[in-house]
């Protein structure tokens, strides 16, 4: 993986190359993620087409990695139908190295809002073994995620409402979230 990233890093020093690579990557990412999210929700292309008021052929076109004429409004409607938000950001090319290295079906999947861990409150018992009523405090925990700010290519992707980056930071058992994350929130 490091060899691959080192090779890509050198290639991206060429301006024309990096814009062409980033554009092709974006098209691949958008098409593959729509397909993966649709299947994750067990929807057919026709189901998704009905949800956003278009034809099945339109969804098929959007799921083609060589299609690049998608419109923001269409992507926004798809996001709503899939229970996720659409995120559009301008990014540095440095982030492309990580995004490219991490590309996988698993990394394209996103839970819908109902399954979004940030909105699922969990009750955690503290010191349950001690049997001391005063120590049986409860804490509400959730998970949050770190924002990758070293982000200039355009990135488009679908995210859960609470997810703003790739590197998930999990709160500890007491529900404590690192300070920088609390500040970001």
């Amino acid at each position, binding site marked *: *993986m490091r060899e691959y990233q080192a090779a890509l890093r050198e290639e991206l020093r060429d301006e024309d190359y990096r814009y062409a690579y980033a554009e092709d990557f974006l098209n*691949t990412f958008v098409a593959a993620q729509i397909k993966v999210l649709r299947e994750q929700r067990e929807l057919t292309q026709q189901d998704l087409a009905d949800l956003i008021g278009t034809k099945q052929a339109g969804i098929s076109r959007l799921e083609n990695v060589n299609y690049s004429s998608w419109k923001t409004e269409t992507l926004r409607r798809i996001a709503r139908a899939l229970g996720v938000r659409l995120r559009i950001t301008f990014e540095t090319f440095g982030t492309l190295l990580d995004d490219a290295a*991490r590309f*996988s079906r698993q990394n394209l999947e996103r839970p819908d809002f109902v399954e979004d861990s940030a909105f699922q409150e969990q009750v955690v018992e503290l010191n349950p073994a001690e049997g001391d009523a005063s120590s049986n405090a409860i804490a509400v925990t959730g998970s949050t995620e770190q924002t990758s700010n070293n982000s200039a290519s355009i990135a488009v992707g679908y995210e859960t409402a609470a997810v703003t980056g790739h590197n*998930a930071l999990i709160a500890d058992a007491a529900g404590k979230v690192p300070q920088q994350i609390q500040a970001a929130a």
Partner: protein
Amino acid sequence: MGKSEKNNACVIKFPVVESIRLYDFLSARGENVILRWARDARLTVRDRAALNQKLDRLVQMPFQLAIDTKFLAGPIHKHIYKLVVHSNVMLRPMLCRGPFDLHGEYTLLLGAVESGGKLPEGAKQKAAENRELLLADPSRRCVHARIPSCS
């Protein structure tokens, strides 16, 4: 909470991405036919970027996802698929799954450029022939080499 547990309080998740291996077919003289094709085809920077991007993603996605998203088209001939790369020209390198490990590898067998929606005459057959040669002689391939700028 022990020391190690404390250290695990903040976990950064990096999902493991398992890659499929990619190989290039070698001619009888041991020459990489894909690099040779890329050099002879005089690929532009844009072509090269698009081709490398597609190959980079190909090894990261499940085969069925590659088919469903029109990444790969086929089989267009006996076990032969073409990689669909839209650039200044319609690059269509041809490949097969395996052929020794069907789920863990692809082998690029022949480079091609599509014109008017058609592959060059005999290209599919040549790719299939290369696959047969490889099956007969597993040493007729090498680990895929990225398409360089001086190709």
